[in-house]
């Protein structure tokens, strides 16, 4: 055999590749299954459209049509018309612009919450499952603690403690993350703080059961480093459950934000969320119902779409449901 600059293949590389192929195959198959689920596809498309339009409105006045923060006292509480597609609110602001602004904000809350939930949940769940008995006990005790702590109290107190400070990023000081102001982040942090326990438990349970699977034992026997085993074999297999849980978590976070608005802890102007729009809509339920109808329809659409997408993802990703 001539010397080449090709590195000499390690015996397990071959197997590894096979796993990779299989892995890719898994995702591809899942994608195929998802595409066959008409309801889930429709839900996904609708969500994409909503996200695109509300993002576009944030950048382009053509889509947004009116400034959502500028009142017009001559045109208050109008019903839908050619000028104002969805009507105007109590202060005469265009409801189309307001709805898009609120939708984007709520989507940011939903997605942002799930990002943080996954970060905390996966880390703690994984550490508990893999880092030995003592860490497991301590981490699960922490999880129990966060779980037994009343959600609403935690949200209210955290929000109270964090909101309106001069801190950077999560406060009003510099620097700020563009598109994610302090109010948004505090709301996200407060809601995530009470939502991560489910994911942590889920990940721990999945990891514990995968740890015992044959292919993991095989990979370990072949000398793969523990980190590699986790990264290549265990995380992807946990991921499906986590993705599904995150999909369901997004609308729940949007709901939670709406409830906060109900007790007077909603997002303050000039921000608007679907929750704050519903809040002001409720005041007008008898006099000018369109103010309530649009944000409610939007929340309902988001809830349904994420639910159907989540169901579709679960069916597609869960190997046990393969027909």
């Amino acid at each position, binding site marked *: 055999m001539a010397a080449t600059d090709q590195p000499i293949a390690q015996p397990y590389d071959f197997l590894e590749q096979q796993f990779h192929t299989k892995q890719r195959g898994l995702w591809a198959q899942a994608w195929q299954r998802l595409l066959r689920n008409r309801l889930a596809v429709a839900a996904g498309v609708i969500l994409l459209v909503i996200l695109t339009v509300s993002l576009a409105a944030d950048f382009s006045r053509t889509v947004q049509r009116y400034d959502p923060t*500028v009142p017009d006292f001559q045109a208050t509480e109008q019903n839908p018309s050619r000028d104002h597609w969805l009507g105007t609110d109590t*202060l005469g602001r265009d409801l189309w612009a307001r709805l898009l602004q609120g939708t984007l904000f709520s989507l940011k809350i939903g997605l942002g919450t799930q990002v943080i939930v996954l970060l905390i949940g996966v880390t703690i769940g994984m550490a508990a499952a893999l880092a030995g008995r003592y860490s497991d006990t301590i981490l699960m005790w922490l999880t129990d603690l966060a779980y037994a702590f009343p959600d609403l109290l935690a949200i209210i107190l955290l929000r109270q403690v964090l909101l309106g400070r001069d801190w950077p990023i999560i406060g009003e000081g510099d620097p700020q993350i563009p598109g994610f102001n302090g109010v948004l982040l505090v709301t996200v942090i407060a809601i995530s703080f009470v939502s991560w326990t489910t994911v942590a438990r889920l990940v721990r349970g999945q990891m514990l059961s995968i740890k015992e699977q044959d292919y993991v034992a095989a990979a370990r026997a072949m000398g793969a480093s523990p980190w590699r085993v986790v990264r290549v074999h265990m995380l992807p297999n946990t991921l499906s459950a986590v993705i599904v849980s995150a999909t369901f978590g997004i609308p729940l976070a949007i709901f939670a934000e709406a409830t906060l608005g109900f007790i007077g*802890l909603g997002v*303050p*102007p000039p921000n608007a969320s679907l929750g704050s729009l519903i809040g*002001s809509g409720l005041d*007008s339920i008898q006099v000018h119902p369109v103010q309530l109808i649009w944000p409610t329809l939007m929340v309902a659409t988001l809830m349904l779409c994420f639910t159907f997408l989540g169901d579709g993802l679960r069916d597609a990703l869960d190997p046990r449901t393969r027909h």
Partner: protein
Amino acid sequence: MTKRYWRMLLSMLAIVAVAAAAVACGDDDDNGGSGGSGGATATSPSGGSAKPSGTITIGATQFETWDPHFSDFAQDITHFVYVWRGLYHLDVNDHPQPAMADGQPQVSSDGKTYTVKLKKDLKWSDGQPLTAEDFVLGIQRTCNPDVAGHYQYILTNIVGCDDYYNAADKSAAEKEELRKKVGVRAVDPLTLEVKIQEPQPTFPILLALWPTFPAPKHKLASVDAPWPGPMENVYNGPFMPSAYTEKASMELKPNPNWVGTPVGVEKVVLKYVDDPAVLNNAYRTGEVDATVANKPELDKLKTEFAKELQLYPATRTIGLEFNVTKSPVDKPEVRLALSQATDRATLVKVVFKDANTPTTSWVPPARNGLKGGEYDSILGFNPTKAKENLAKAGYPNGQGFPQLTLLLVDTQTNKLLGEFLQAEWKKHLGIDIKLEFVDSKTRSSRFNSSDFQLVTGGWQEDYPDPENWFLGLWETGASLNKTKTSVPALDQVIEKAKFNTNDEQRRQLYRDAEKILLQEANGVAPLWHTLAAFLVKPHISGMVENKRPGDTFVPGDWYIELWKTSKK
């Protein structure tokens, strides 16, 4: 509620009614004997119409505490006057009329000693005699540091009341000593004597308010004893509780030993509901007969319940309150500019659906004897003047205007209000202010420690006199002066007015004080007077509005005995 319970309640009511009739007859005889001193007990000439009938259910707000010597919550005070009465009671025009007292008080020539005769044979609802000792105990409770009554400050003129109240850290024996020094004593069971430090023309009004209500000596072992709850307590007012579930409802029945105008209904049910929108729906279905109107719905209510919607001016003023020590609102021109750049008429129309009255006056017209509008030329909407003033302050067209934050409680209405003001000032002055929304306790905490630049706030009257709109509020360093207002001329006028026994002069001095206060928007630029809005079914009569703080819940809260219903 079980049927059995209903039957029980009905039979109980029957017994009570019989007993009440018997007692009433006895009282009538007594009154006949003593020559019936007119006033409240006079029976109507039409004769036997006194028998109460029917039930009225009203939407109410759960009270916090049942203790009249402790509480300062409007919803509590509403309840207190249903079931207790003081020596006097404020009539519809807010003049004190004898209630438990037999005629007006005798005032000594130096104006510092009040002697009040009680009606004869007064009884608590359990039949025990109600004497001057009970009134002594009531006032002592309000002055008691361990009770920590919120309204002690209105009795500060009573001899020794402050000394006792400030003795929280002293030993029990020392407190007992100070208690005895409080200037109130029972000369005999029917005669109460109160000594005050300075002659105070408004003092008789205080004898009609809850801090001076009697305390049942036979129920309280000492001045420190805990105040019994609704079902354990005894009463001297027109009604008394017959059933109570916290946060749900209370039922009131006529008090058999009530000596005032005979009550008109045999049962009043208070339903405790937090959300006015819910209450209005309950009004629509007939679950409540009277309620506050949900103001955001006012436009609809005006047509839906054209005849049943009642709007009354409440004695409450809200405006822009400035912390005059903080830049930029330390400059009078800035304060005037902000006030003049606010279109109050549009504000009230858009944000409040005309559920308030735009104003530039601090004291409501009912109280200062003026017509209103006197300060429009100084504070009223005038964009040109506003721009001039801002330029005079050194910020032409808003250039270089420092950061200004408006602090608001997070409610739907306040969001609209804040955004309205923000937009108005941007439009007329070219300045960008910041809105900060916090929950109500945070707002109060910031306000009470003067940690704010600009808030919306104002005053809700405690008792019907112009002095209540100034004393302690606007004098330099006064305890409620959180805007840090300090105008020597204002201090002098208030000092002159304070214990002035010449009533006309006194009222004129307070009018002068208002002028000085508003001249440069010192501390406040009034925006609106609140209207109280109620829905009352047509079958109810006798809900007489008299603008008391308690009346923010139902009109005529202070005259529950006059309520009647034609529905059986």
